[in-house]
């Protein structure tokens, strides 16, 4: 167990190389229970690589990662139970219904009372009336709501989001971030990456800027009162580019 019981993610010196390309150059990150972290960065900064490592889809070249007390080198299968992932891709099957998709993922996670949980989750996301509809026929916004249901079905300790707004129109985007805000107010720990500075800022508790494979800036949102985050973002990303 972590010394600080509230710590959900502790990353120390995470580095990742693809051949000669160093995508991450030593990331230190501590996310506590109930935090809502927003990590901004330009294209190629290493955001998806970071999420990939935190989600156990990629193995770090160097560094230590502990999620909810489980070291990534120890019990990776158990560690995956602690994580819910939402990406710009839905990870859903277009030719299965919403109910079948959630039931399938529920079986993979070994969830008890699956029928009740799936029905409840569909109702919570406003999709109860579309439970027997194939996902292929859903709008992008509905698909993203079902994706949230998929990611939350097993009750993860942390929700990881990798550019989840991609492809959503303004209405769907607004609804999506309202849902995220509601989840956060229910004490769900969230870590999200984005390159769009206009979204999510009002909801988050912590901000970080990832550039050139490094976290070049991080702060609690309360520390930023009165400062223009956009200026800070461009200052640090331009500095890294030079």
């Amino acid at each position, binding site marked *: 167990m972590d010394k600080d019981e509230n710590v959900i993610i502790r990353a120390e010196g995470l580095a990742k190389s693809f051949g000669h390309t160093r995508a991450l150059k030593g990331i230190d990150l501590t996310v506590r229970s109930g935090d809502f972290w927003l990590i901004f960065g330009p294209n190629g900064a290493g955001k998806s690589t970071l999420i*990939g490592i935190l*989600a*156990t*889809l*990629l193995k770090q070249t160097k560094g230590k990662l502990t999620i909810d007390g489980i070291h990534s080198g120890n019990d990776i*299968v*158990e560690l*995956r*139970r602690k*994580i819910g*992932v939402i*990406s710009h*891709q*839905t*990870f*859903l*099957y*277009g*030719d*299965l219904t919403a109910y*079948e998709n959630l039931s*399938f*993922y529920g*079986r*993979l*996670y*070994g969830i008890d009372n699956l029928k009740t949980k799936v029905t409840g989750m569909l109702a919570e996301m406003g999709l109860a009336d579309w439970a027997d509809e*194939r996902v292929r026929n859903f709008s992008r916004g509905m698909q993203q709501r079902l994706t949230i249901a*998929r990611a939350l079905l097993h009750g993860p300790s942390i929700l990881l989001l990798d550019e989840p707004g991609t492809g959503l129109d303004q209405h769907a985007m607004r609804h999506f971030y309202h849902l995220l805000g509601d989840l956060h107010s229910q004490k769900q720990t969230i870590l999200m990456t984005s390159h769009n500075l206009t979204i999510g800022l009002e909801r988050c508790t912590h901000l970080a800027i990832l550039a050139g494979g490094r976290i070049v800036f991080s702060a609690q949102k309360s520390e930023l009162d009165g400062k223009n985050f956009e200026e800070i973002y461009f200052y640090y990303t331009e500095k890294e580019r030079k």
Partner: protein
Amino acid sequence: MKYFKKVLAITVKDLLLEAHTKELTPAMLIFSLIVIVIFNFSFEPGMQNSDIITPGILWIAFVFAGMLGLARSFAEEHEQEAIRGLMLAPVDHSAIYLGKTLSNLVFLFCVEIISVLAFGIFFNINIFPILPGLAVVLGLATPGFVAVGTLYAAMASNIRLREILLPVLLFPIIVPVLIAAVKITGVVLKGQPLSGVSGWLNLLAAYDGIFIIVGVLTFEYVIEE
């Protein structure tokens, strides 16, 4: 036990997808039947050495139909990156391999059963007395072909030319299965006892065991990013 429940969940998901779309099995079946019909027109029934040719015809139909199915077996997994959803689940990645292998096996068995019946009709062979022997050869040869095919299909699934590349990669490795299957089928079609081909049967059993274990042990590395 939990592990096998998850294997079964993946298989049931694939069967459900096929039940909804009806894309894979009908295409495989039509392909297999076309091969049988074409060869039926090429070789007249009762011609000399037909007992040497017919087992080959049957296995050409099965292997090409199987290739068609295998090449598409990971298509749904990549459409919305569902494969990443599977990889994120708290289950050893070998369960994904076994689940997919099992569903591919079900699809190919369905195609084989109907094709064998059609084969009997077109080539004027009374299939029913030799059904037990055919069941043995199909039951031993198909799992080996599908086990190695599913592994190679996973490897090729990220490649643009997967439909072309999969047969090129797969054919050399399934040669032992094909030779053994054709030899045993020939014996079965002649109505001779299987004891005469016990060596070939042992080879198929060993091939199945080896390639299922290889698949289970290596699948993690095949699908990792």
